[in-house]
């Protein structure tokens, strides 16, 4: 397992190098010297030009320039944005990243979970009414035109019913005079939410790890889980954060639901297909023969091995939604990374565009790495041979 993780890590770093090299040379391939492009532009101050020259080390040879670029990249020195001069690119990205991260990760986890659970149920009840109904509904949303669906949902829930806030990611009035910046709150949400999630995982793992699921253990797990969540909420409220978190969560509901609706069917159908194969496996029959309860056979036998292909799709869909993130962020006026990428490209803000592009890549590579590890944890055959085992 350790060797597997190390080799995957090596691969990720190598891919990252190749990726930033590509980004770099794409930039180089642009006609003309980058500073020349701005020489005649009065909008770009002399200081920015100098900064850029220094950052890119244009006085040195190509190889040296490239090495400097790589070195700077890994130190987080991405230069200064033109359109937000004199803010460093790193600052801008660090401001946007948590917002994008919170929104897309939430939407993804939710969509994956819904898809997994529904796929599991409809595969187990294949050919019944639930199967047809879920498939039709899922495919309808899957094929719907995304911006239109978003508009319809905004119209229903935010405009007509006024249940949810319209526009932006925070309520400006509420945040006037707030003791925190929105970003601090996002930061707390990322770290606090992550800590709570890990805590919950550990609690459930500790109590329900055994093969014997006693009622007492299940009750204890739920109890201590609730206590943990209550403590976290209490801490947030004592710190005066809760109203602001609640505001952000309110603003997240619509985009998250839209993203989930549009994408859960992918996981669901994949899970259904994959599980229709595993239910035919002999070990599922053997599990029935062992007299195990139906839900255990479904979850520990049929669904447990069927989940593997869906993990791959999780990464692929994360990639596609990151690139399609612009649509979501525009529809819901969510000032995230997608908007930065788009606007910086329009504004010829090369340092910012490069930085945003590179960051998206880093993000995806990390997701890929996590998926690889997850895959190996879920399928012991992988860490053993280094690749998925052929079914014998």
């Amino acid at each position, binding site marked *: 397992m350790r060797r597997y993780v190390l080799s995957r890590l090596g691969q990720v770093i190598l891919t990252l190098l190749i990726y930033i090299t590509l980004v770099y040379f794409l930039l180089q391939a642009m006609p003309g010297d980058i500073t020349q492009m701005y020489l005649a532009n009065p909008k770009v101050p002399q200081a920015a030009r100098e900064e850029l020259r220094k950052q890119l080390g244009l006085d040195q040879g190509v190889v040296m320039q490239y090495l400097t670029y790589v070195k700077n990249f890994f130190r987080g020195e991405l230069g200064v944005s033109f359109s937000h001069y004199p803010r460093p690119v790193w600052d801008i990205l660090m401001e946007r990243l948590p917002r994008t991260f919170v929104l897309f990760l939430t939407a993804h986890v939710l969509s994956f979970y819904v898809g997994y659970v529904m796929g599991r149920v409809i595969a187990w009840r294949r050919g019944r009414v639930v199967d047809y109904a879920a498939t039709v509904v899922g495919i309808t949303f899957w094929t719907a035109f995304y911006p239109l669906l978003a508009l319809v949902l905004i119209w229903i829930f935010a405009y007509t019913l006024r249940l949810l806030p319209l526009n932006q990611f925070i309520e400006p009035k509420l945040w006037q005079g707030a003791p925190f910046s929105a970003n601090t709150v996002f930061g707390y949400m990322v770290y606090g939410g992550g800590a709570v999630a890990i805590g919950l995982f550990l609690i459930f793992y500790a109590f329900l790890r*055994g*093969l*014997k699921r006693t009622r007492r253990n299940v009750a204890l797990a739920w109890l201590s889980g609730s206590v943990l969540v209550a403590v976290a909420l209490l801490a947030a409220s004592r710190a005066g954060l809760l109203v602001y978190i609640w505001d952000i969560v309110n603003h997240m509901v619509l985009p998250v639901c839209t993203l989930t609706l549009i994408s859960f069917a992918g996981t669901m159908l994949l899970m259904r297909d994959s599980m229709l194969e595993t239910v035919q*496996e*002999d*070990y599922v*029959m*053997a*599990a*029935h*023969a*062992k*007299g*195990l*309860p*139906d839900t*255990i056979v479904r979850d*520990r*036998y049929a669904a*447990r*091995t069927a989940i593997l292909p869906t993990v791959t799709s999780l990464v692929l869909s994360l990639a596609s939604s990151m690139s399609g993130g612009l649509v979501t962020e525009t529809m819901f006026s969510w000032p995230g990374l997608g908007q930065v990428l788009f606007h910086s490209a329009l504004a010829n803000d090369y340092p910012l565009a490069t930085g945003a592009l590179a960051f998206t890549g880093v993000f995806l590579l990390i997701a890929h790495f996590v998926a690889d590890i997850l895959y190996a944890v*879920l*399928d*012991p*055959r992988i860490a*053993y041979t280094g690749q998925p*085992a052929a079914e*014998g």
Partner: protein
Amino acid sequence: MDPLLKLDDFTMHYRTKAGWVQAVDGVTLSLARGQALGLVGESGCGKTSIAMSVMKLLPYNSKVVRGRILFEGRDIYSMTDGEVRKMRWKGVAMIFQAAMNSLNPVYRVGNQIVEAIVTHEPETSEEEAWARVRSLFELVGIPKERMYHYPHEYSGGMKQRAVIAMALACNPKMIIADEPTTALDVIVQDKILREMDQIRRKINMSMIYISHDVSVIAEVSDVVAVMYAGKLVELGQADDVFKRPRHPYTYALMRAYPSILGEKHELATIPGEPPNLLDPPSGCRFHPRCDRASAECSKADPMWREICPGHYCTCHNPVEIGGTWVGQVRSGKAADGGDQLGTSSNS
């Protein structure tokens, strides 16, 4: 005493696009406690279908047409799901034909056995269950530390043993072993068969061995049931059936397999193919391939009758004289072959 398992005119069919496959037709047999029954017949004659019927694990396209299966006097087809779950593994455990694939690839082998134990014996703690797995592994001859390994780290023979250990985990009243050793080489096969037989005798468990190989059946069973094209054709004590086979099919089958102990005799294949169970032959299903067939055989279905006490057979023209190679295998005596059928010769 009540038999442990009783099949009473049991008949089940599969629905296919081409029609109904009459996989099991009017099978009547019973199994006493502690008894080993060998079920033998060519591929596709319905052996696995009988096993699956007893486990109540038939696929959705199957239908029980007639008859009953009684386990400890209770009709399993009128049991509730909960009762069936209790019967499984604690009452009847099974070693599947594809034993190699009946282990979940993503869980440790030990876990899968512990799971069965704690499901059926809620009063047993997980530690006790692991201790039992340890002793089971010792019993079937797998190193203990292998409990914590995944199935893909096992060799084929080890998986087979693990599956046997799993079947023994809840001390079932009976085990159905569907070709438990076909995937193994002959030496390992023989060893595992002997071990299983020993364990069975030690804990006085009933057993149904299923095989297409008469020599395997001859070695381990008390009672033998011979099946052809979905029907039982002969049933009796192993000694009776193998020393004095009455049905021409039994006789032909015995001659088609070499002795597991390496006794030499010429193998005689059975001419023709097993019939298509979508539309089996009229009368006796074996008549197109039978060299004793008379005009009657294609018209009338022969009766299931007790030819001598405890020895049943369905044949219009049963074989009369006994003395064949299986008798030699069991007693280890010299050859005195019978050539009553005149089809082939012993050496």
